[in-house]
């Protein structure tokens, strides 16, 4: 990559796998799981977080020398809240149905721990360009997990992807359903998301033993 030095590239690539915000840092689970029953909602949520975290990190990083440390939490909350309002208004204007599906979870991006966590841990101590890369990287890491979870839940739960049937028609018994396959309604209910994330963590840590926690 000519545009990015190796160090800068690592800022983006690390959070995608070995320092993933959800599976390793345990941040941002709050607003992530409830909306992953459909792939489309997961994708929109991921894009919103990429926007908020990328821009927010730059703003905080630019202001890092003028924010008094005592009131930094409130300043950070205001910055995030402003960005989230923008996202919310854009969604309401251009994707009204989807904004109804996401309901309060757009607002909950404000208290998404990834955002506060990255502000605290990175943007307050680094320049704008680095913070931007870090923000995008972490938000991408978050988005990847969201999309994986959304993919499996929608595929096994409803037999669709982005609302398009991919496994055949469950009522007319075509495609895979002709062989006696049934949709697993269990994947649609909220607790299934937790179990899917648990399994992702399991797979990831089995592949990379360095990530295993001490008991």
């Amino acid at each position, binding site marked *: 990559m000519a545009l990015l030095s190796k160090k800068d590239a690592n800022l983006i690539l690390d959070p995608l796998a070995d320092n993933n915000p959800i*599976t390793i840092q*345990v*941040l*941002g*689970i*709050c*607003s*992530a*799981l*409830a909306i992953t029953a459909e792939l489309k909602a997961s994708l929109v949520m991921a894009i919103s977080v990429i926007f908020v975290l990328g821009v927010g990190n730059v703003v905080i990083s630019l202001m890092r020398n003028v924010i008094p440390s005592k009131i930094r*939490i*409130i300043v950070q*909350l*205001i910055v995030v*809240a*402003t960005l*989230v*309002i923008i996202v*919310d*208004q854009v969604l309401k204007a251009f994707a009204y149905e989807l904004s109804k599906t996401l*309901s*309060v979870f757009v*607002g*909950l991006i*404000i*208290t*998404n*721990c990834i955002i*506060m966590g990255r502000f605290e841990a990175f943007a307050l101590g680094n320049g704008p360009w680095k913070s931007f890369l870090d923000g995008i990287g972490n938000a991408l890491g978050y988005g990847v997990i969201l999309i994986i979870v959304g993919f499996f839940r929608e595929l096994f739960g409803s037999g669709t992807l982005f609302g398009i049937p991919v496994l055949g028609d469950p009522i007319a018994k075509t495609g895979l359903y002709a062989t006696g396959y*049934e*949709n*697993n*309604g*269990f994947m*649609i*209910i*909220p*607790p*299934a*998301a*937790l*179990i899917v*994330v*648990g*399994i992702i*963590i*399991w*797979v*990831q*840590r*089995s592949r990379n*033993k360095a*990530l*295993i*926690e*001490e*008991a």
Partner: protein
Amino acid sequence: MLEHLELFFKSIFIDNMVFAVFLGMCSYLAVSKKVATAVGLGAAVIFVLAVTVPLNWLLDQYLLQDGALVWLGPEYADYNLSFLSFILFIATIATMVQLVEIVVEKFSPSLYNSLGIFLPLIAVNCAILGGSLFMQAREIPTLGLAFNYGVSSGIGWFLAILAIAAIREKIRYSNVPAPLRGLGITFIITGLMGIGFQSFGGMLTGDNEAPEPVENTTAKTIEEKEIKKEIEDEEKAVSYNEVINK
């Protein structure tokens, strides 16, 4: 009275903050290693929810809702400031948390010592903002009910973190597969507990609930079978996990 009772049980069990809508998961996972600290954080969440939800209800009613400003005079009836809710709610919460911290420190140092370290954490706990946003989305009609909603969802969250902390204390003595240790197993147990809590769904069958859509029937039966197999105490959750491993 009946509506208070209904909302109370509904928010604790059916719409449990953790198991139904995944609110406050970050601190739920991070602070649930010991029962004692979990109780401290849980108590602080109940307290802050009980204060902020009614406060934000007032803000919503008299400032933010479509036409809420009409009490200022008829010329203000057209204003709709609801797009400001996020920023106002979070500002209220952050301020209240600071205020509560100062007040508790002044008047009850012992309570401050046990809650103190958790209070700043709470400002960014999704359960708190989520409580206010759900209060707004569900259009809770009165101040009393808003207070009730705040307290009861706090209690629901408290119960959830208490249960997971107790399970995690026990699970330390179990032979969990190495890659699942810590975070992974906590996720799976929370999922299993969530399935258990789904069974409360039939507890209140109010007349105002819409009938189940037909295509959900297969999902329902599978879910019910799961629930029958579901086990609420921790040893069985562990053995279930061992079955998965095999």
